[in-house]
């Protein structure tokens, strides 16, 4: 359950202040699948980063799963990123010197999961994204679509309640985009709350709810009509 209230985020670069989020309020219930759309620079990534506890808001209130995030210190935020949230990035962000399996195991390392259990859970997560066979490879030895699957496996491996995906298909072609969206939809069906940023209207059709942003504000918020379900 995500509830934000009048969130403001201001970047200060030298003397220039830029307000990327100008009072955003939003409520997302468990099991929802929300797409955020809007022109470049309107603040979508900024919002995702705040929701993902990667970035701190300048003011406003954020309650995640009943817990007030607003005043938390770095270590507590790390703990939340570790257990409550799974992040999927446009540029995959896998660690190049580790094998795929090790990449997926890493969040569990920080969560303190015992080694043996880690291996099992990582393989299980890789099975959920249909990638159980190439686990010993390095990320540079697999395709973009496969990399994004690894990144998704890594995001879900600690069983987070919320999955945040910032343009997860931005670097992928139509066919692979479909495969990735199928996986994300499946995760949503399995109970995860999903928030997704995209520029592609077709991608939004896989979700249940579309939010449009402009200039750091939400301008409309609708149910998806003619939703595509795999």
């Amino acid at each position: 359950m995500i509830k934000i209230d009048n969130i403001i985020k201001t970047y200060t670069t030298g003397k220039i202040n830029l307000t990327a989020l100008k009072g955003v309020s939003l409520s997302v219930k468990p099991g929802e699948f929300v797409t955020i759309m809007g022109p470049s620079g309107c603040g979508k990534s900024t919002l995702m980063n705040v929701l993902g506890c990667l970035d701190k808001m300048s003011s406003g209130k954020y309650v995640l799963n009943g817990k007030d995030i607003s005043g938390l210190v770095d270590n507590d935020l790390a703990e939340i990123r570790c257990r409550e949230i799974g992040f999927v990035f446009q540029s995959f962000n896998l660690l190049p010197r580790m094998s795929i399996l090790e990449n997926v195991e890493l969040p569990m390392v920080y969560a303190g999961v015992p080694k043996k259990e880690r291996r099992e859970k990582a393989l299980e997560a890789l099975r959920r994204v249909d990638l159980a066979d190439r686990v010993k490879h390095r990320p540079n030895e697999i395709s973009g679509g496969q990399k994004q699957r690894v990144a998704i496996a890594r995001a879900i491996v600690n069983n987070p309640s919320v999955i945040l995906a910032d343009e997860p298909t931005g670097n992928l072609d139509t066919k692979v985009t479909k495969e990735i969206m199928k996986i994300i939809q499946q995760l949503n069906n399995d109970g995860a709350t999903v928030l997704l940023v995209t520029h592609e209207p077709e991608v939004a059709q896989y979700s249940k709810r579309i939010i449009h942003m402009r200039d750091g504000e939400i301008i409309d918020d609708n149910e998806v009509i003619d939703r595509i379900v795999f």
Partner: protein
Amino acid sequence: MNLFENIKMAIDSIISNKMRSFLTMLGIIIGISSVIAIVSLGEGGQNTITGEFEKIGVATIKITVKTAEAEKSDFITYKDVGQIKDKISYVKYATPYTYKQGTANSERKSKSAMFVGCNEDMYYIDNIELLYGRFFNNIEFEEGRAVVVIDETAAKSFFGTIDVVGNTINIGPTTSTKKATIVGVLKSQFGMFEGMVDDDMPAFIYVPGTYLDILYSTQSQISEMYIMADSKDNAEAAGILAKNMLMNRHGNRDRDLYKAESLMKQLDQINTVVGIFTAFIAAVAAISLLVGGVGVMNIMLVSVTERTREIGIRKAIGAKTSNIMFQFLTESVIISCIGGIIGLILGVSGAYLLGRLAGITPSVSPQIIIISIGFASAVGIFFGIYPAKKAAKLDPIEALRYE
């Protein structure tokens, strides 16, 4: 996340950057290996010196007359030497010591010589090792007979062989040499430097002090003598008693004319000097360790910058500040420790190699191993903290955005 996994991760990272890791270690390797080599050689040198002294006998005391202040009647006589030996129970051996330069020649060879005038006890006091024959005896000393003991090197140069007992040799001041019989040949005094001795070096010859007086027509004015106590512990007392006896016999108690020096004291002094010298060089080498530490910090800082994105990713998926801090700190400590271990191996082998050339058996003490490895890790921690802190404090979003 446990220590073991952190170490494994650090090693993986070190291995995946072999060349850079090696270059980082280089400073530590050089620092540790030179400290270990120097300290081991220094300690080995001290042991060698101590060993040499023990061979001569640390129970040996040198008694000298302060010649500048002494009158003719104050000098030591052969009688004094005899009395000291007979009357002082701590004294086991006593010999006068006079020294003259001159010439020695055989039919084959003539060369300059150094004559040491002493009595038969010199054999024990100098711990002489004879190859052939014997040392001269008490009767030969008392009667001032023309007998000599020469060393192996001299024998070779005078006769071409070393078993020369019974041969005669002419000795004395260059203007008037006299015939003397060789009664013994001792082992070369030069030991490991044997090969460096050239034929023109003066011959080293033991002569009864009494005969040396005859050769040089001098009245026995002995300014130096050696005594050997029955044990190391009695050496000092023996020296004091001998000094007392000399003062009584010469009636010069009011003037402090005799000096008793134990070789033990000299040994301590030499060891102190060697110790200070070793410590000094080791300190210089330790500075190179600090430089090595700065090298570690430098590379770790580069590594933090290079891996900014990695740090961002780790933080995004849940790494705490402390996880990142510990990760980088572990890396620098492990790099330093591996450098320390390589340095240890190189240092010990270097010490043995150099020691072989210098004739010293290095002494590698466990302390120095523990200290140097400990020091290497301390360097790793000290110079690793700053880069690790820098890595840990990175903002996740900025780190992720870093290209």
